[in-house]
Every structure is written in C-alpha cells, then in structure tokens.
C-alpha cells in the first residue's frame, strides 16, 4: 500500500496516515464500543501501537486491515473488561453505527436521508457494520472479510441485502403497475 511508502521514521507520513484512516477506524470502533471517548482513545492507542512497531511495517501485508484488526481486538478487550459478558468474536455483539454523512447530491432530500437512515438502523448488526465499512471507509470486500474474520462472499451478500433494503424503501416516481406488483410480492 502506498501509505507505507516513506513511513520509516517519517512523522509527516504518519500524520497523513492518521488523517486518512483514523476516521474510518473511529467509526468502526464506535460501532463496537458505543462511546465517543472510548473510541477516540482506542483509535489513539491503535496509532500509538503503529508508532511502536514502525520498524516492522514492511512485514505487514495490508496495513489498513492490520489497523482495523488491532482496533477490533482493543474494542473486544475493552468490552470484555467493562461488561461482564465475555465476547470472543463479533457474532452476537450488537453494533451501533454512526449516522452517516449527509449526501451532497441535491437529488436526495433531507426527508429521504432520514428515511434511509431509518432503514439502515433496522438492518441486522453485522449487515449494518459491513455497510458502513464499505461505504464510509471505502474498504474492499476482501479487507472487510479479513477484519471481521468472515468470508468475502458473506460481505458481498450482506452488502447486497443492505442495498436491496435501502433501494426498495426509495420511492419510484415512474410508478407502473409492474413495479407495484413487484413491491407487493415481497410483503
């Protein structure tokens, strides 16, 4: 990855990397720990870790995946420490996604955004998390799969489900009998 270039002892590259990735890692961490303060601290710890191991960076295949994975581990450790129930994986863990950024495109009205957000909130936890990771953090399917320790095919299917749920909630102005039928057929 290009982020790694000139990373050696290079504070500037380090800062850029932070600006580039910390937002996504924050969102991801927040989804798991559900606290702004804790999430920010974990993100900071992740990047401190990165600074500590900078000599070994060339050995890391995909830095993005590596950092998300550290963030996941830190988050799970935090959850285990602060909540009595022990969590070893993301399965069965409720996630809370941040309200997504407002779209710039005018064709999506504020009402519609609200509606979409409502649909997103109703998605199953894993589906929601995957949607966020792909959309907001621009992660590849393979990367999401590696971080969450699931198969890339699951990521692909889950995202398709999310898109379908959102897409179907959107109005169709060119309402034809055909689409009405297809909509009813789902209920």
């Amino acid at each position: 990855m290009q982020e790694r270039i000139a990373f050696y002892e290079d504070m500037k590259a380090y800062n850029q990397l932070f600006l580039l990735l910390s937002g996504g890692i924050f969102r991801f961490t927040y989804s798991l720990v559900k606290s702004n303060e804790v999430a920010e601290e974990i993100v900071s710890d992740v990047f401190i870790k990165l600074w500590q191991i900078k000599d070994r960076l060339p050995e890391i295949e995909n830095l993005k995946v590596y950092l998300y994975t550290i963030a996941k581990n830190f988050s799970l450790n935090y959850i285990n420490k602060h909540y009595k129930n022990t969590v070893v994986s993301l399965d069965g863990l409720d996630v809370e996604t941040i309200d997504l950024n407002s779209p710039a495109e005018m064709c999506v009205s504020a009402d519609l955004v609200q509606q979409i957000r409502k649909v997103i909130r109703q998605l199953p936890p894993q589906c929601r998390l995957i949607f966020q990771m792909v959309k907001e953090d621009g992660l590849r399917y393979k990367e999401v799969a590696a971080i969450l320790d699931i198969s890339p095919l699951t990521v692909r299917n889950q995202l398709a489900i999310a898109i379908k749920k959102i897409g179907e909630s959107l109005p169709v102005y060119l309402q034809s009998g055909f689409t009405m039928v297809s909509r009813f057929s789902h209920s």
Partner: protein
Amino acid sequence: MQGEQITQEDRFWLLVSLKLAGEATPEELAELETFLQQRPEMGLRMEMLNGFWLGEPEDQGRRNDALNRHLQRLSNHLSTPTLNYEAAMATEEAPAPLPVETHTRGIYRLLWPIVGIAAAIALIFFISHRPESIKNERVEQVAENTISTKPGSKSKIQLPDGSQVWLNADSRITYNETFRGPFREVQITGEAYFDIAKDKDHPFIIHANSIDVRVLGTSLNIRSYANEKNTEAVLIRGSIEVTLRSSPDKKIILQPNEKLVVQNGKAVVVKGMPSVQKYEDAPVMTLGKAHIQPKDTIAMDILWVKNKLAFDHETLEEVARKIERWYAVKVNIPDERLKHVEYSGVFEDESLRQVMEALRWTGNFRYSINKREVTITP
C-alpha cells in the same frame, strides 16, 4: 414466475451494491446497464442510492483536532506504563505478529510477594515545552529551542533533521532553532537516548557536561546529570567519536555496545593513558562493555526508553538518584554505610512503594514514605 422475478431483482440489487462498492467486474457493469434499459424506473432509485452513497467528504477539521489530541498522547506515551489493552491483546488473533512486551522479571520482582499486582505507575507527566515537531507553526523567532522534562516525566521529541530524542526525567536539550549550518549541534543536561538521522555532510555533535560526542548516524545514550559524578556515553549502533572538553586533542572512538564513563569536573586524560585502560581508584575515564540484558537483548543503559527502571550494580546512593527522578520524590539516606551497597534489578510498571518494598527485601533496611519524601534507615 413471481419467484423468478424476485431473484431477478435480488440480482439487480447485488449488481448495484457491487457497483457502489467498486467491486463490479466489467461484465457485471454491462449486465447492470442491460437491466436498466429494460427497467428504466429502477434507474432513479439507483441514482438516489448513488447520491446517498457518495455523501460528503469527511470534516477534515475534526480529523485534524483528533490528530492533535492523538499526537499529544503519543508524545506522552513513554510515560504511560503500557497500553491499557496490550496485556489482553496477546490472546487475540491478529494477521501479523503483534509485538508483545516481554515481561522483565528482575531479581526483585521474584522476591516481591504479591507478584502479579499490576499497579500502574502514577506518573504525573508534564512537558514544560511542547516538542517543536508537533507544533508545525512556529510563532516566535527565537534563536534556541529548549525542551525539558520534570522529575517523574519523560518525553520523546523529533529534531528538525528527523533525529529522534528520548528525554529521560529531569533532563534538558537545547538546540539552535534552525538546526542549519555545517554541524547539527545539541546541548544536553540529564539523560537522553538519541537515534540520529544519517547525514554525512552535517555531523551531529552532542555537548554534554564534560564531553563532546561527534556522530554521523547512529543511536546512543548520553547520561550527564549535573548532580552525578560521572558522564556516560553508551553506543548502541554505528560509531561515535568522543572528545573530552578538557583535552580536545584526544579522541576516543566507541564501538557498538561500548560504554564510556568520564568523571565530571576533573576530566583530564592522564598523559599516555590508553583509552581502554581502567584505573584502580577514582578513574578519570573508563571504557568498557555495556551490560546487555539477556531477555531484551538491549543494553541496561537504555531500558528507561522502554519505560523500565533499571539498576545495574548501582549503589543505593545512585539508585536513590534514579528513584528521585523517576518518581519525582526526594530520597534521604542519613546512614553513610547504606549508601554504598550495590543493587541490580529491573522494574516495569511498579509503584514507588513496590520498588521500595523490593529493595527493602534484599537490602535489609527500613524506609518510610512521607508525602513525596522517602527516608531509608538501617
């Protein structure tokens, strides 16, 4: 027929999701195009989804604030015993080997009756000057930069040339603000570990109490506290050339893991004295091997960089000086005989009381802690 249609729609949403995620193959994109030609009414939904998907670029200001807060924490991290989550991390799977700090157990640690109590050192951390490298914009034009640490705190800074300096407690480094000219020069009081950026054309010169050290690109530890009788230089990598302030014509070349100890004040090289020779009593200068800790394979002298408090055959008097700086306390030893007993050991994440307790076990003395003052008595 209806079942087939649902499948077709599912296929459509899958194709849309692939396109949005940037994971679609050219064939899949073509398939989506064909689908949209047949079902133009779906195009609007897709456009809306697309608009929603793109969203607004993230607020860079907020990220910058987060970065600044993070850098503050990073600069302090040397004073934080270990990351909160690190111990538990070892059990977690990770895609690449994670560095797990090897737990050093000094001889005292084994004696410590309640091993396993993970007491965090309550270090009050305070950097009187923010490292210049973190603050990009420099407001005032001053000729010299001084960065200092108080007792009980450490700091890591980056010099304008990219060299890294870890500053131990109660230490000070001064350098010319521009850091330009034929030499890169710094003045050091206290203890610092240097990782110096290579630059053949601009030799790096460290001025300490009684010595000057000239280096090209290397890492080394300098210990030069005003209230100690010796100045020490330990070379970790590369090679350095040390000049005694009192006899500038004499140059001593150090090899990796060699340690030079020079007496402060009366640092005079005795005529014809070979640099490696050891004198029986009160040596003006000694050159020897640094003690390597087997577990970490790093010199005892630089364990402080790893946030470990280490004593290497040091007298209680020397130990006391270190504890004073490490914990920002005052240590009194009224009894002269106690002062000369030697101690060795490595402490990590231990409180002042734990360290004192461990020393008491092996040292056969008593102590009392009254606020920020420790008194050791027989």
